[in-house]
């Protein structure tokens, strides 16, 4: 799975996710990536989110929208809201991670697996790339 969240010069957020799904899947199984609110969500009032991981748990937890709702209703930061929703996934037995970028340019990349391919770029073009914990 791959994903991207972005904030443009006009303060508009967007999120996208694309995936080939799971190896050996059957029955037309669909994961969270194409489910708006589960694997992908963006709202200029709060945050843009793209998820990766064990899709069934992300669908059941409506992870991407939950992260946004925690920020909107509870006033949590993107980092705290991100950790909160990944913990919910883990508590249910799922694993994976997400990327989130809020309306003010703060980002979070929480995950509960051994690693996640991830990267970010700042306003001035500084690139950060990480794979492992």
């Amino acid at each position, binding site marked *: *799975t*791959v994903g*991207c*969240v*972005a904030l*443009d*010069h006009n303060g*508009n*957020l*967007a*999120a*996208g996710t*694309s*995936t*080939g*799904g*799971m*190896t*050996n*899947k*059957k029955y037309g*199984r669909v*994961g969270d990536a*194409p489910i*708006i609110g589960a694997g*992908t969500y*963006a*709202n200029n009032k709060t945050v*843009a989110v793209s998820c*990766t*991981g*064990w899709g*069934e748990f992300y669908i059941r937890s409506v992870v991407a929208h939950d992260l946004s709702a925690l920020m909107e209703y509870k006033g949590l930061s993107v980092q705290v809201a991100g950790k909160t929703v990944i913990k919910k996934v883990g508590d249910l*037995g799922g*694993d*994976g*991670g997400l990327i*989130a*970028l*809020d309306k*003010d*340019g*703060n*980002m979070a*990349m929480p995950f509960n*697996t*051994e*690693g*996640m*391919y*991830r*990267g*970010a*770029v700042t*306003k*001035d*073009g500084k*690139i950060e*790339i990480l*794979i492992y914990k």
Partner: protein
Amino acid sequence: MGNYVLVIHGGAGTILKKNMTPEKEARYKAGLEEALKKGYAVLEAGGTSLDAVEATIRILEDNPLFNAGKGAVFTHDGRNELDAAIMDGKTLGAGSVAGVRTIKNPITLARAVMEKSEHVMMVGNGAEQFAAEVGVEIVDTSYFRTEERWQGLQNALKEDSIKAKLDHSFLTPQKAGTINHDNKFG
């Protein structure tokens, strides 16, 4: 006030350093860097966040290292089935596609669903028909095949014929109350 304008991921899982060669790690990092540079260039040129997201994900879809577009994993039946979604934070518009087999860049079709239809989600043959109608690039299904992903399916079939696996995991133990997903790859 934060300082970030674009963030990406290329999948999560049990990515163990001991299983990664320096050459392969360098290829992953180069792929991620290329995507970040593309997205940043779009934003720097005054493009919208939607433009940046689509352009960035297209780079990752075209890179066979990642499980999206070319290099997607195989289903039990030996097919590639691709899903994608995009959402605009300004309008709360959204578009997504699922189970498509001939769309070179599913993220572009997801955006077309959002911008050129009255719907949010399209699946399978219908989504592909819509792609043809709005001019989204269609390829033969063989375009997505890589030998590494094919062997991944063969290994999965040898181990267990019914379990599905996520992308990048190895030997994740089953947790209580869950379905059994050893060796997840997602």
